[in-house]
Every structure is written in structure tokens, then in C-alpha cells.
């Protein structure tokens, strides 16, 4: 069982470029989440999804878009990357609401120059 897989693991972008981070889970979880982690801070929720075809904003959604076209995939897009979006991004999934343990991917380290 792969669990939660994030692609890519590392990426360097120039300011203004766009990219999509892919998250795939094989646990048939309904709920999926995108977080970012910055030095000295905990994980902060960007967007989440409570099921296929649904998305909603989290604590820090600005500058990001998401899509959940298939239950197993949750995509995070940066339309015009900014240096402030340099961070480590984690995807997570769970079978229920947020008080249920979440299963995390290993993260994507994104640097924007």
C-alpha cells in the first residue's frame, strides 16, 4: 500500500511560473487536504476537499487553486508563483472529518526564485 503519494518531491520555479502539485491516495478516503509548512510555523491548511468534485478554502488559500476530479487525486495549482510561496507542501487524506487521523504524504519542497 503506497498510502499518500506526492509528485514531485522537489521543484524550483521562477516568479510568475505556474505549476501543479499532484497528490494521490489509495485508501479510498473521502477527505483530502493540502497544507504548507514554513520555518517556525506549524502546518497551515490551504484547501481541502470532502469528496470527489468538492473543494473548499482553508486558512491560507490565496494564490492557490485546487481540483478533485477523481476521488483518489487532489491537485494543487499555483497560477503565478511568488517567492512567498516557497515552502514545503504536504497532502493528507482521511476517511472522516478533521478529528480523524490524517495520513500524510512525504511532502513537496518548492522553491520560487
Amino acid at each position, binding site marked *: 500500500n503506497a498510502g499518500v503519494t506526492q509528485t514531485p518531491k522537489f521543484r524550483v520555479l521562477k516568479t510568475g511560473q505556474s505549476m501543479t502539485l499532484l497528490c494521490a491516495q489509495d485508501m479510498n478516503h473521502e477527505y483530502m487536504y493540502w497544507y504548507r509548512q514554513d520555518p*517556525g510555523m506549524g*502546518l497551515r491548511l490551504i484547501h481541502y476537499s*470532502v469528496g470527489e468534485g468538492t473543494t473548499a478554502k*482553508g*486558512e491560507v488559500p490565496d494564490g492557490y487553486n485546487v481540483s478533485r476530479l477523481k476521488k483518489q487525486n487532489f491537485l494543487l495549482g499555483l497560477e503565478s508563483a511568488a517567492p512567498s510561496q516557497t515552502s514545503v507542501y504536504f497532502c493528507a487524506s482521511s476517511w472522516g472529518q*478533521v*478529528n480523524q487521523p490524517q*495520513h500524510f504524504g*512525504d511532502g513537496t519542497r518548492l522553491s520560487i526564485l
Partner: protein
Amino acid sequence: DQQVKQNSPSLSVQEGRISILNCDYTNSMFDYFLWYKKYPAEGPTFLISISSIKDKNEDGRFTVFLNKSAKHLSLHIVPSQPGDSAVYFCAAPYNNNDMRFGAGTRLTVKP
């Protein structure tokens, strides 16, 4: 405004001794808390949780204590092992679908 605070960025203990990791919160509406453990280059993994109707939850070497009046919880690891060296995050659900994480405490267990 950090609603979940872990004021100790790091903690070092000797193998076999007790590790105590602390977490404070400001939102009195929080009624459930989780601890996650994170190794370098990996994602966090769930460790243990506690509901506000309890003041203690135990799972093997790991025990979480909750003091609602002080808005404080702590994670005890007894005995500590070198493999416990990791970053520990305290977290609390903010609403049905959001979570607030502390900044984490890096635990080092020395052999």
C-alpha cells in the same frame, strides 16, 4: 494568531528517561487534540489523540494529559528511545474540516 502553541522548539533527553512535550491553546472551543510525529524528509504520522471529555489517554509508551482549565496538554514518552527522535506537532480541529497545528518541538533522545 497562533491558537496552538508549542513554546519549546527543542528538547533533549537521555535514553530511558521521560520526555515531556508541552502544548498550549487559546481557543476554548477546541474539544479534541492530536499529536503527530515527523521524521526528516517524511510526512507527519498520527501518534495519539485525546478528547476533551478525558484528561488522560495512554497508548503504550505514550500518554497525553489534558488540563482544560489551563488550556494545556502534554505528551509523555516513557521510556524514551533514540527512535523517538523526531519533531512532534500538537494539533486541534478548528472546525469540522480545518486543523490548527503548533510549530512543533524537536525531540532528541541521546543514547
